[in-house]
């Protein structure tokens, strides 16, 4: 079948002329990565007791600095976007939007990670090497120390994400994928309590992640074979017209997409999500749920729109199917979950389906609406996991739903906030969730995907049921006897949750500015 390859080699595509990298565009990434390296050095050279404070300061400074750099760049950014780093990075409208989103989210995430008031000493194990169940383990649970490597790891992951959603060629994308994944694998295993679960989550995430990246990579290879280049633009050009067999193209596309969908936890490639979300330390779960989703969909959007727009007719139907599966799986499986974190995981699967709908509407509306949806969902889910981390029993977080019964009586504020977030996820008006759904469905409908929209609406109605279940539990049920205590959060967690709630409310009531920003510009196709 591949005999045509015996023909004489194609002319080598002339390599891009070497032009000095316009550094201004990538300052944010550089800052983050540099800070990450610095963080590693801090671990190496600073005494234990100083590390936490230093790391927190360093990390937050880095993020804020990156944000400042980003803002500084945006004010006079070229309308059409520009290529940086010898064309490996495309710094265009969507990329900037996603960077901004990621940085803002990571502030919240870092605050959650850094918090030491909710769980004395923080949510992370004092020394990862200690074996669970041993005397030392019980000791470390009481100790106030924590594995401060988390902070540089976070920064590395963040850097990877930022590169991932700006990557202009598949190789860069692959590297970025690994840079963002590897730290997360580790961070999943660092929970202070329930270490067994935590480690199991890490193993599962790691094995499946590596497995998925292998698919991703093979896809890259096939596409390279098809188009002779890994540049998205070149692939797009090749797909538009070449004599090569489309087998390579579509096999490659399929594998590539699978790799991406895995990261975005779209059904049926979601299987890792519930387990990992449940096992990982809640701050890390928040970070993953929020930021990874953003980065992954950033990548999906870029790949589909830049490289495969011309072949959309072929793959669109398939992604329709996947979107439906994801929504249905998420909504239906969420109904019977008994663990809050798992429930939120399934909700994120369902949301991934909604996002995919926006992503396969190949219009400006589709792009901007998906970006906006990412923004809204990420902040809501961040805050939601923040709240989850507050409800604690004698042995750590009380994530079993039965423990949440009658929470409203014990602490109305927390219950109120969580209700608000759940309603946002259900897409009730005056929350960001509604506006997000609205713009996505609007884009889909105007791109002629009415049936998909209807299915999505029904799915979100079903999903509404399990959000409602939690509200019923919190408000209408009698409090459980050995009910959990709600710890009064310290400044960090409070700040993080407040951030999420405010954004959720703001985008629900006055989304105009964010919508404009999301519609800022299309992908730079070069």
């Amino acid at each position, binding site marked *: 079948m591949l005999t045509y390859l015996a023909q004489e080699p194609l002319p080598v595509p002339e390599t891009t002329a070497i032009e000095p990298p316009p550094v201004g565009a990538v300052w944010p990434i550089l800052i983050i990565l540099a800070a990450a390296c610095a963080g590693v050095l801090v671990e190496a050279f600073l005494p234990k007791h100083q590390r936490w404070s230093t790391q927190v300061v360093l990390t937050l400074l880095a993020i804020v600095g990156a944000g400042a750099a980003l803002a500084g760049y945006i004010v006079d950014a070229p309308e059409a976007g520009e290529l940086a780093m010898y064309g490996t990075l495309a710094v265009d409208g969507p990329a900037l939007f996603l960077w901004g989103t990621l940085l803002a989210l990571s502030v919240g995430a870092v605050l959650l990670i850094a918090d030491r008031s909710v769980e004395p000493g923080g949510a992370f194990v004092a020394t990862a090497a200690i074996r669970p169940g041993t005397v030392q383990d019980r000791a470390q649970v009481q100790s106030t120390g924590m594995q401060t490597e988390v902070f540089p790891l976070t920064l590395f992951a963040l850097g990877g994400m930022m590169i991932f959603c700006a990557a202009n060629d598949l190789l860069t994308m692959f590297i970025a994928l690994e840079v963002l994944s590897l730290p997360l694998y580790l961070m999943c295993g660092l929970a202070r309590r329930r270490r067994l679960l935590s480690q199991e989550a890490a193993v599962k995430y790691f*094995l499946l992640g590596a497995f998925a990246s292998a698919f991703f990579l093979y896809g890259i290879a096939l596409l390279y074979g098809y188009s002779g280049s890994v540049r998205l633009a070149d692939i797009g050009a090749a797909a538009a017209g070449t004599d090569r067999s489309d087998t390579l193209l579509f096999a490659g596309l*399929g*594998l590539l997409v699978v790799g991406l969908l895995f990261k975005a936890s779209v059904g049926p490639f979601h299987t890792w999500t519930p387990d990992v979300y449940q096992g990982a330390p809640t701050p890390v779960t928040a970070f993953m749920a929020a930021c990874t989703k953003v980065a992954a969909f950033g990548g999906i959007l870029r790949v589909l729109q830049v490289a495969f727009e011309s072949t959309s007719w*072929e793959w669109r139907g*398939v992604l329709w199917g996947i979107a439906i599966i994801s929504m249905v799986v998420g909504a239906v499986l*969420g109904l019977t979950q008994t663990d809050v974190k798992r429930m939120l995981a399934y909700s994120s699967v369902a949301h991934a389906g909604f996002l995919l709908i926006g992503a396969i509407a190949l219009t400006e509306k589709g792009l901007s609406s998906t970006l906006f949806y990412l923004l809204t969902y990420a902040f809501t889910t961040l805050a939601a996991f923040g709240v989850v981390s507050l409800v604690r029993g004698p042995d750590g977080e009380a994530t079993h739903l039965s423990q949440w019964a009658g929470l409203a009586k014990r602490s109305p504020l927390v219950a109120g906030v969580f209700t608000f977030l759940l309603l946002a996820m259900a897409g009730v008006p005056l929350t960001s969730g509604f506006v997000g759904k609205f713009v996505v469905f609007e884009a889909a409908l105007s791109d002629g995907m009415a049936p998909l929209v209807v299915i999505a609406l029904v799915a979100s109605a079903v999903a509404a049921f399990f959000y409602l279940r939690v509200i019923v539990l919190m408000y209408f049920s009698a409090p459980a006897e050995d009910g959990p205590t709600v710890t009064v959060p310290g400044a960090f967690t409070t700040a993080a949750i407040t951030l999420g709630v405010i954004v959720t409310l703001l985008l629900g009531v006055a989304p105009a500015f964010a919508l404009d920003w999301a519609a800022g510009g299309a992908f730079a196709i070069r």
Partner: protein
Amino acid sequence: MSINLAAEVAPATGAASQAWLLLALPALGAAVLLLAGRRRAQGWGHLLGSATVLGAFVYGLVLFFESTGLSPDQRTQDLLLFEWIPVGSLDVDIALRIDPLSLTFVLLITGVGALIHIYSIGYMGHEREDRSRFFAYLNLFIAAMLLLVLGNGFVTLYFGWEGVGLASYLLIGWYQGRGYAATAAKKAFLMNRVGDVGLALAIFLMFKTMGTTSYAGVFEQIGGQSTAVVVAIGLLLLLGACGKSGQFPLQAWLPDAMAGPTPVSALIHAATMVTAGVYLIARSSPIYSLPQAADARLVVMIVGAFTLLLGCVIGCAYDDFKKVLAYSTVSQIGYMMLAVGLGPAGYAFGILHLLTHGFFKAGLFLGAGSVMHGMNDEGDIRRMGGLWKKMPITFATFALGYLALIGFPFLSGYFSKDEIIYAAFGEEGWRGWVFGGAALLGALLTAFYMTRLLVLVFLGKPRWEGLKSEDGKDYHPHESPSTMTIPMIILAFGSVAAGGILATMLPEWLEPSVGAVAEREGLVSHGMVAVMATVAMVIGAGLAYLLFARGEQPVERPQRVSWPVRAARADLYGNHLNEALFAKPGTWLTRALVFVDNRGVDGLVNGIAAGLGGSSGRLRRTQTGFVRSYALSMLGGSILVIAALLMVRFA
């Protein structure tokens, strides 16, 4: 003729321009009494109640004489009170039509009404506590009834129509403690509603075809309508009339309605409300007089004739004082229906019989009330007898009413009934024989059962001696107080004289409303009819006397009797019919629907929810927790994706 009827409407002047007082007085009385509450109104409630009606009666007289002063074509006057339901082309007003017909009824209603109010002062004497409420209801009834007859359109008529229905409901169910009273009240209201549906639909049809519902408008345009429409309207109106007037097939409620206090039976279920059906048809004479409406009129006649016989037959079998009178009412209204069904030849006589009947039947009921009042509310005539010397006045008045009813020569009934029989014979062909014969036979039966009643109650041996009433007391029959006897006496005079006086005057007095009496050459001459009727009366009365006056009458109702008697005692199976046709199926349907709604409709909803939950619970299990199965699902997924992509591309 029917056309120019509408044209003669003139705006009300003089006393007529204040005619709203007629409604306002009793309505106000009702409102005041209801709001005052039973404690406060105990002392004066009954007086106020009676006063308002008397006032209305007086005012009615004023109007009457004023209107007699006018030339006949001036006598129909309209009085607009206010716009009621003005929407688009529909324009319903609260407005009064003062014309001979309505005035006649005003006098009947307020007159008899006033008498019965006074009577009630005595009759309700022993429940002072609730008496004011009783008078409030009576006033409410008078007000509604007046609106019914005075309204100048079918909607206002409908307003009064249902209003009297409410009052009758309240008064039949007066003894709320007694379950059967409540049931009877409900039954009455429901069967009336059935009739009302007919009336309502008639109104809708009028609006659809003629765009108006006022008498003037309808009568003006009805002539131009197709036969189908006219007949439909005629039959629908008739359905309404049947409901209100206890005509077949909706007669079953009237006897049960006797569960109410006797004055109520006298006023509402004998003299006034039940005759509203007759009024409706007389009022609609411009419709029924149309040639297109011949079929509708025929149906009216059939219903009337059939009902008058049905009433008589059942009346012969009953042993309950008031129920006998009730069925007699049914049959007498049958006469009136037959009369108005005859068209121009009969309207006036229908009304005439209505008036005379109003007098003597009210009198008879009051007599019955007086008897029962003296007999511990005993209603079974087999437990009476020989009461004439215990309560002479009652006996005298009752006897006069009795004679008037059976059409004893030169008493009221004689004039009115004979006119109807004569007019019935006036129909051409088989109809004349059938309806005339029916009317004649009715006269015979009427005499029979009324004589039976009179004999069993007042004559013969006093069978009540030594018996005890339900509440275990001995019977001490005694004459009633004057507040009760005086009205009876007045009514007795009425039942003697009214017919003779009215028979001559009424027809031309009513002419502006129902048109002139169409003189027809009948099958038999006027005198002949008089003779035949008298003969029939004598036969019936004599037969009854022979049967019941001589020899013992068992106190207990004999059970082993011939089939016709059993049938008659069972109301000729009217109730069984309703049971079988409506009540039973309805109950079953309701039960079935309740089940369907819970299990079916709601079950479906819950079923979907349960289905989702179940599938969720099953799907959950696929999340086994084994990395390798996850990997498998991923691999499978990717293979599917690739296969699908390639298929789409290459197939």
